[in-house]
C-alpha cells in the first residue's frame, strides 16, 4: 500500500484508513487489483461518505470519499461483487453509481426510500415495485422458467431463485434477495455500544460468535482498549467451536442432499452433543451474547478444560471414521464430484471468498494471513483444495474441522491467566472489526459518538459468494441445485440485514 495519508487504526486486526477523493476512487481499486488484493465491502453513511474496504498484502485499507450528488465511479468493472453492494447503497442512501445495472437490490418498495438518511420518515409513502422486478429472461426453443421461493421447500431462509432451464439442465440462474431485510443497520443507530452487542450477535445466527467478536473488536478499536490475552483465547475457543458445529451440520446435510441419510443422522448426533456441551459450559447452545466489548462473559475452569479436551479426542476419531465412509461411498462421491464446479481461474476472477474460495484454490484465511490475537500465538495451517466442486467444499470442511480441533486443543493447553472482561469507557470515533467466521471474513464498521452508535455497517462474505453461485449451477441439473446451494451454505440474514 503506497498511499499518502493512510492511518493505522487501533483495531487488533491490521486495518488502515484513507481519505480519498472521487477522482482517485478507481486508482485505489486498481492498485488493490494489481497487488492481488480483494474488495471486501462497500457502504455509505448519512454524513455523505461512501466507503470501500480492500485487502492488501499488509492488511485492510478502508477508503472513504465525500460525495455530494455526483455519480460515484463504478467498481464492479474491477471487482464484480461490487455491483450488488453499490445497488444496496443506492437503496439505503440514494447515492448514485455510474453502473449500468441500477435495479434496486435490497429494497422491494415496501418501505419508504433511503431508510439510512437522517431525515428518513418511516411513515412516508411507498409503492411496491416487486411485481415488476426485471429478471433477465432466456429465450429459445424448449427454454422454460422455474421460479422458486421466497418460501422454500425445507427448513431454510427465504430468497427467490429464477431458473431458466432446458429439460433438466440449468442455462441460467438469477437470485433475488432482500426478503429478510429487517432494518438492522438502522436499528443500531442510537443504541449504546453495550446494547449494540445483542443486536450484533443476531446479524446471522449461525455466525453469532464471529459477528459478536467483530463488533467487540470494532468498539475496542474506537475506544483504544486492549482485551486480556485470556479473553482473546476464550474468543478463539468459542469461534472454533462455532466453526466445528456449523461444519458438522453442513457435512450431515450434504450427505442427506445426496440421498445418504445415514450421514445426516451421524453428524447431527455429533453436533447435538457439541451444542449440549456449549449449554453446559457456556450457558448457550449457539454461544450467543458471550463475546462482548471488553472481553468474554464466561470463563472456563480446569474441569471444563478436561471436558473440552475429551470432547476433541472423541470428535476427531468419529469424524475420521465418518470421513472414510464418505470417501469410500461411490454413490455419494458420484453426486459430489464435478457438481457445482467453480474452477480456480473463475473463482479468482469473481472474487469467491471464505470456505468456498479456499475450495477453489482462492486461498485466503485471516487466521493465517493476518493473525489477530490469539491466532498469532497458535499453530495453524489453512485448508485448501483445487477442485472447486461440491466434493472439494466437503473436503475443505473435513480438513477445517480437524484444524479447529487442533486450535482448540492448543488454546486449552496454553490458556493464559488474566481477567476475562474489562470495562470499556464511553468514547467517540470510528473503528473496525475483522474476523474469519465459518463462511469467511466478516467485517463490522462502526461510528460512535459519545458512547452511542451513529452508524454500524455489517458485511457478510455471502455478498461475494451469492453471485458466484449463479455461475456454479450453470450446466448442472435442477435437482442438484439444493446440493450445490448447501455446499456454499450462504447467509440470507447476514446479507439482507
Amino acid at each position, binding site marked *: 500500500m503506497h498511499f499518502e495519508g493512510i492511518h493505522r487504526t487501533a483495531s487488533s486486526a491490521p486495518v488502515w484508513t484513507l481519505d480519498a477523493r472521487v477522482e482517485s476512487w478507481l486508482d485505489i481499486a486498481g492498485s488493490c487489483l494489481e497487488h492481488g488484493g480483494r474488495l471486501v465491502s462497500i457502504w455509505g453513511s448519512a454524513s455523505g461518505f461512501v466507503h470501500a474496504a480492500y485487502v492488501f498484502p499488509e492488511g485492510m485499507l478502508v477508503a472513504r470519499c465525500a460525495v455530494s450528488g455526483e455519480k460515484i465511479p463504478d467498481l464492479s468493472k474491477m471487482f464484480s461483487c461490487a455491483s450488488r453492494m453499490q445497488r444496496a447503497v443506492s437503496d439505503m442512501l440514494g447515492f448514485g453509481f455510474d453502473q449500468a445495472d441500477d435495479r434496486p437490490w435490497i429494497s422491494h418498495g*415496501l418501505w419508504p426510500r433511503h431508510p439510512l438518511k437522517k431525515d428518513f420518515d418511516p411513515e412516508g409513502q411507498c409503492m411496491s415495485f416487486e411485481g415488476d422486478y426485471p429478471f433477465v429472461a432466456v429465450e429459445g426453443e424448449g427454454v422454460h422458467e422455474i421460479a422458486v421461493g*421466497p418460501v422454500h421447500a425445507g427448513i431454510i431462509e*427465504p430468497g427467490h431463485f429464477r431458473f431458466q432451464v432446458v429439460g433438466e439442465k440449468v442455462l441460467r440462474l438469477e437470485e433475488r434477495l432482500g426478503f429478510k*431485510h*429487517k432494518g438492522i443497520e438502522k436499528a443500531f443507530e442510537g443504541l449504546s455500544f453495550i446494547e449494540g452487542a445483542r443486536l450484533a450477535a443476531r*446479524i446471522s445466527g449461525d455466525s453469532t460468535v464471529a459477528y459478536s467478536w467483530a463488533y467487540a473488536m470494532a468498539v475496542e478499536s474506537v475506544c483504544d482498549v486492549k482485551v486480556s490475552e485470556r479473553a482473546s483465547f476464550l474468543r478463539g475457543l468459542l469461534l472454533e467451536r462455532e466453526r466445528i458445529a456449523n461444519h458438522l451440520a453442513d457435512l450431515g446435510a450434504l450427505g442427506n442432499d445426496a440421498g445418504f441419510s445415514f450421514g445426516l443422522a451421524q453428524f447431527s448426533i455429533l453436533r447435538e452433543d457439541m451444542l449440549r456441551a456449549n*449449554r453446559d459450559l457456556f450457558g448457550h447452545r*449457539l454461544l450467543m451474547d458471550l463475546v462482548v466489548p471488553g472481553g468474554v462473559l464466561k470463563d472456563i475452569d480446569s474441569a471444563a478444560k478436561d471436558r473440552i479436551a475429551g470432547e476433541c479426542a472423541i470428535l476427531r476419531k468419529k469424524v475420521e471414521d465418518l470421513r472414510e465412509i464418505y470417501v469410500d461411498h461411490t454413490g455419494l462421491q458420484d453426486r459430489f464430484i464435478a457438481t457445482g464446479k467453480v474452477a480456480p481461474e473463475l473463482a479468482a476472477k469473481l472474487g469467491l471468498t471464505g470456505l468456498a474460495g479456499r475450495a477453489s484454490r482462492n486461498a485466503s484465511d485471516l487466521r493465517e494471513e493476518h493473525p489477530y490475537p490469539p491466532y498469532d500465538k497458535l499453530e495453524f495451517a489453512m485448508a485448501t483444495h483445487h477442485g472447486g466442486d461440491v466434493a472439494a467444499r466437503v473436503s475443505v470442511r473435513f480438513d477445517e474441522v480437524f484444524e479447529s480441533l487442533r486450535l482448540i486443543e492448543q488454546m486449552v493447553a496454553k490458556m493464559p491467566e488474566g481477567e476475562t472482561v474489562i470495562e470499556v469507557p464511553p468514547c467517540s470515533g470510528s473503528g473496525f472489526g475483522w474476523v474469519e467466521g465459518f463462511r469467511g471474513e466478516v467485517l463490522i464498521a462502526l461510528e460512535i459518538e459519545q458512547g452511542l452508535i451513529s452508524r454500524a455497517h455489517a458485511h457478510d462474505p455471502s455478498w461475494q459468494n451469492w453471485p458466484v453461485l449463479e455461475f456454479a449451477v450453470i450446466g448442472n441439473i435442477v435437482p442438484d441445485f439444493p446440493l450445490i446451494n448447501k455446499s456454499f451454505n450462504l447467509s440470507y440474514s447476514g446479507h439482507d440485514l
Partner: protein
Amino acid sequence: MYRILREILKNGIKTEPEPKPDASLRTRALGKDASILTGALTVRHVDAGSCNGCELEIHALNNPYYRLEGLGIGFAASPRHADMLLVTGPVSKHMEEALRKTYEAMPEPKLVVSVGDCGKEGGVFCQRKNYACKGGVGSVIPVDVEVPGCPPDPAAILQGILSALRLS
C-alpha cells in the same frame, strides 16, 4: 456397508422421551378438530425474517435425540399438504405477503406455532419502531402457540408443537 452398520450399532438409540404439552404457551383455546392431527401431523416451516438461529434449532428436531418423525410429525414442502405452520422471525415487510399466502394455501384446520422471541413480539429487532418489520407473527396471521426463547432449544420447540395439538 459393514462400517455403516458398525457406526449405527455403536451409537445405539439416542431418542429421549418427548416433553409434555404446556397449556400456558397457548394464545387461544384448543380447537376441537386439532385432536384429529395427533399421531400424524404435517408441518410447513416459514422463515419470515429470523436471524437463522431458530432454524438451526428447528433442524435439530430431526436429529436422533428428538426424532420428530418418530412422533408422527414430518415437514412438508408445500403448505397445501400442511396442518401446521411453524413460523420464525420478526415478520419482515418483505415476507408479510408470502407468509399470508402460505397461510391461506393451507387446508383447515390450520394450526400456527410461532418460534422464538422475534416470532412472539419482534424480539431484539423491534425494541424500537422498525421501518422494515411488522413484529410478531400474530400481527399478520392468527397464532395458536408461542414458543419464547432466543432461540428456544429443540425440546421447547417440540413442546410448543405438541401444545398446539393436545392439552396433556
